[in-house]
């Protein structure tokens, strides 16, 4: 078999195939629910209900999407320049750590000053964490997939060390957890009484900013050129190494904002399990969006919605909660395939 590009895909194809993918996913989920002794016909309704069925559900979906937008953007920016940043998880924790270091009273400033400082400090920390691997890549040709991946483990152990050492909350009863941020360091809520916070708005702003950078600035142009053909870029006089470092700076900074936003917006303090793999999921989010920064917002909402909805469904239908991740994985895999098939047709030869 062979794939052949479709010059102008029809609307039916563009919308129909993803719909088929989702339908198949729901059918598979219903089958699993049946196996586990739940009601297969309730599955779809419960997922939708759980993801967007109430103001509470909807806001939870947005909440979950927030860190994914940041990590998704981080990955999209890096992958666009063919910088394979698998270390968004580490950078996320970097942002979280610096937020806690500076935001628990070290800088006793009013919110209007403190919050911007925290944003910048987080971005710098995340950027520095990716600069190392990027530098090794440009200077020594060390494969960054592996270095960034390994840094995730090192970062997590480092955070664990901090949380049991200098950052440990003296009032925390020994539990490895940081002090709480001072109120000035907290991102205000967007909606009273619900967990949605300004981090979400910041994520949307970040997405728009990345889009502008990529399409409107020389840096964006350079990043795309370096990503698609470094030889041609170098020949044309684009400083390839410097562009990769700048990309790393932006990417690491964006991933770190996920950590900042989770700590300052949601949790108020840092624990070792701040992120249930947001850094890795960011890769999926970015690729699902075909590395388009605005698409990242949509795909992050999709991923968050599927997870939150399916998780809630598992409780309502009384099936093991792991079904949520199964559903998410199936939705993702069938969705990337469907998106491919909207643009290519399979020909046999």
């Amino acid at each position, binding site marked *: *078999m*062979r*794939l*052949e590009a479709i010059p102008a895909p029809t609307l039916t194809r563009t919308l129909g195939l993803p719909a088929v993918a989702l339908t198949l996913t729901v059918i598979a989920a219903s089958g*699993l629910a049946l*196996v*586990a002794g739940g009601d297969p016909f309730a599955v779809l309704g419960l997922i939708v209900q759980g993801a967007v069925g109430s103001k509470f559900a909807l806001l939870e979906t947005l909440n979950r999407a927030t860190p994914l937008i940041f990590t998704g953007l981080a990955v999209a920016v890096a992958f666009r320049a063919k910088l*394979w940043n698998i270390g968004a998880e580490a950078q996320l924790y970097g942002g979280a750590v610096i937020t806690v270091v500076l935001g628990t009273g070290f800088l006793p400033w009013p919110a209007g000053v403190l919050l911007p400082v925290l944003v910048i400090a987080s971005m710098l920390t995340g950027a520095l964490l990716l600069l190392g691997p990027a530098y*090794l890549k440009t200077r*020594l*040709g*060390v*494969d960054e*997939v*592996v*270095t960034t*991946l*390994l*840094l*995730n*483990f*090192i970062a997590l*152990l*480092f955070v*664990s*060390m901090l949380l*049991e*050492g200098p950052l440990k909350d003296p009032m925390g009863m020994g539990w490895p957890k940081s002090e709480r941020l001072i109120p000035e360091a907290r991102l205000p809520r967007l909606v009273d009484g619900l967990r949605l916070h300004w981090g979400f708005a910041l994520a949307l702003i970040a997405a728009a900013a990345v889009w502008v950078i990529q399409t409107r600035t020389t840096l964006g142009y350079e990043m795309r050129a370096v990503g698609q053909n470094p030889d041609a870029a170098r020949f044309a006089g684009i400083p390839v190494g410097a562009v990769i470092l700048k990309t790393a700076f932006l990417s690491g900074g964006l991933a770190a904002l996920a950590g900042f936003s989770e700590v300052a917006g949601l949790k108020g303090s840092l624990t070792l399990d701040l992120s249930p793999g947001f850094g*890795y*999921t960011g*890769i*999926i989010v970015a*690729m*699902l969006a075909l590395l388009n920064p605005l698409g990242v917002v949509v795909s992050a909402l999709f991923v968050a919605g599927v997870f939150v909805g399916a998780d809630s469904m598992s409780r309502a239908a009384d099936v*093991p909660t*792991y*079904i*949520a*991740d*199964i559903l*998410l*994985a*199936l939705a*993702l*895999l069938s969705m*990337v*395939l469907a998106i*491919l098939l909207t643009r290519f047709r399979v020909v046999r*030869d």
Partner: protein
Amino acid sequence: MEILDILLSASFWAAAIRIASPLIFATMGELICERAGVLNLGIEGIMVAGAFAGWMAVYTGTDLWTGVAVAFGAGMLFGLLHATLTVPFGLSQHVVGLGITLLATSATYFAYRVALPEVSSPPRIEAFQPYEIPLLSDLPLLGPALFSQTPLTYLAFAVAGLTAFTLYRTPLGLALRAAGENPSAVEAQGLSVTGLRMGAVIVGSGLMAVGGAFLTMSAFNSFFFEMVNGRGWICIALVVFGAWRPGKALLGALLFAAFDALQVRLQQTGLGADIPYQVFLMLPYILSILALIVMSRRAEVPAALMVPYNKGTR
């Protein structure tokens, strides 16, 4: 116990080899995939699935070797899914790999919970026991370290040897290496790139699953959630560390395991009291990165790694 004493003790090396065994299986599996041109990030999840499938088979009554075969089969199934999506369809190997890890992990947990809803203490099986190879196990130092392991450890070394032999001494291995370097060379010689790559991913995934099964059937005797605990990601690093060569990758696995064994023992020494235990846990990762930097200049990445091959497009 001082570092030198540790390094000279047979039990330390026995531990290193034991810790290395699951890594060897999975690293060889990943190496085969990457040599054929496919980065398999499904490894972590496939190891989880293998750990469960093999163990569950034995728990429900099959013998141990059948359990290993079941794990291998489970790995191949996920490998088939991975291969179908990444080879003929050429989907992003990052996304598919991570998706498979998510799918295999959650499907395993789901299956475990559906199969064993009422357990409160994990059920156990009669796992592989150490087998002392006659004569060889009497050798000083080497005997207790190398030749008093469980059969699965011996199998791990055999698999590494077989991988090296296949890659460098057989037509199949030649074709696989070519597929990872320049698929059109393979196509032009009348071989199927799709077939080779899919085969490599399927068999490689099977090996990863056996690596997982080692944890539940040899290193331990029950299945636990999160048991694989990042070992799959380590194997990805080991493949790079080994410069895509089975021998070097095997050495890397042993080295990594030795550091792990050492770190466990160092925590008991005077050092252990002063230094946070996380530092010891970090050591193997930091050393891996340092090793990568040292050997970066010589590493030869398969040129077509992560590049999908679509017949008829340029």
